[in-house]
């Protein structure tokens, strides 16, 4: 089998069994991402985009492509924010990669560490050792929003791909958290608060496998390490089941996204109407549903 366009050695086969070489795969990948950005009006010229950068493959590919998109089409501003939870044998590796990559691209990087902000690493902040991902998620989102605002960002771009989104849709359905699903989609915009920075997901329709191949083909400085906590997560379990289904019925993840996007407008309007007024945290001034935001609540509990 050779590339369908140029007969070169293929690196990827699409679901329609079309084989693509390095160049044609890169072109296919970039076009699909740029089309998503344009279709969902993710970026405007006046935007200041902060990429949530972990140093892993997804966010590194995202940063690389947004930089390319900026050079080719529009002149928006680009920066990156990295949240360092202090996970040993993991974050220090990806942090180094992120610093190197930002330097290489000439993009400003802001690093926020749990230790600096709270005086503790993730492991010291987690009460339930069997589920560190929940605590980590709350704090990461909190510091990401804060960090992006400090960079005067108008939007945060995250490296969520089709696999992540399909997993989230399923997780929310299984746990009965439909309101959380209303916050999903290529552009999240349910929360209205002057301090909340809107999120965009340019890799929304790209499979995780495609992202990995693109990062390899482009030779991006990414060390492939896995967060040691990943194996403990519910997301990991759902991911495995979805991968089994995808192997048996190719196109499963894409179908989940497509069906979800059909009902998303209805979900958004249903939950927007019934949503509680978003207030401000009495401790830190960040968006909060209750008296204190979830991050301050967590930190307070640990310090007690």
């Amino acid at each position, binding site marked *: 089998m050779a590339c369908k366009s140029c007969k070169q050695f293929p690196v990827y086969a699409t679901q329609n069994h079309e*084989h693509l070489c390095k160049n044609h795969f890169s072109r296919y990948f970039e076009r699909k991402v740029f089309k998503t950005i344009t279709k969902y009006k993710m970026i405007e010229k006046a935007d200041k985009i902060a990429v949530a950068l*972990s140093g892993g493959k997804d966010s590194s590919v995202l940063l690389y492509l947004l930089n390319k998109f900026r050079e080719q089409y529009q002149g928006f501003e680009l920066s990156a924010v990295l949240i360092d939870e202090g*996970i040993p044998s993991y974050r220090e590796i990806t942090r180094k990669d992120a610093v190197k990559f930002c330097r290489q691209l000439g993009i400003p990087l802001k690093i926020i560490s749990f230790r600096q902000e709270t005086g503790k690493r993730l492991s010291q902040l987690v009460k339930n050792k069997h589920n560190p991902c929940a605590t980590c998620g709350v704090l990461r989102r909190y510091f990401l929003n804060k960090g992006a605002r400090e960079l005067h960002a108008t939007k945060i771009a995250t490296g969520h791909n089709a696999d992540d989104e399909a997993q989230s849709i399923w997780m929310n359905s299984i746990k009965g958290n439909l309101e959380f699903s209303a916050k999903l989609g290529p552009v999240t915009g349910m929360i209205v608060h002057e301090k909340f920075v809107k999120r965009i997901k340019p890799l929304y329709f790209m499979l995780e*496998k495609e992202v*990995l*191949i693109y990062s390899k083909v482009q030779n991006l400085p990414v060390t492939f390490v*896995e967060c040691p906590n990943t194996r403990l997560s519910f997301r*990991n379990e759902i991911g495995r089941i979805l991968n089994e289904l995808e192997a048996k019925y190719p196109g499963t993840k894409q179908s989940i996204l497509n069906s979800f996007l059909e009902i998303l407008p209805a979900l958004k309007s249903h939950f927007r109407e019934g949503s509680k007024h978003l207030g401000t945290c009495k401790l830190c001034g960040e968006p909060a549903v209750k008296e204190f935001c979830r991050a301050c609540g967590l930190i307070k509990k640990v310090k007690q």
Partner: protein
Amino acid sequence: MKSTITLTIERTKKKIRIALPAGSTIKDAISKAGVNPVEVVPAVNNEIVTESYKIRNNDKIELLSVVSGG
């Protein structure tokens, strides 16, 4: 005639040895090894290949893990 080939899982460095008939593809190897093809990207001699690649003698085959977290 069957020959023995070794698949290396890149991240864990775990080696899986399997016997396959001549002319087998990466798809055959992944299937025989009991690995989900959705969760790996095959590389032969450090170059990414598709599952239709026909395995040759002395090929160094690695499976790159797709699934990551963080």
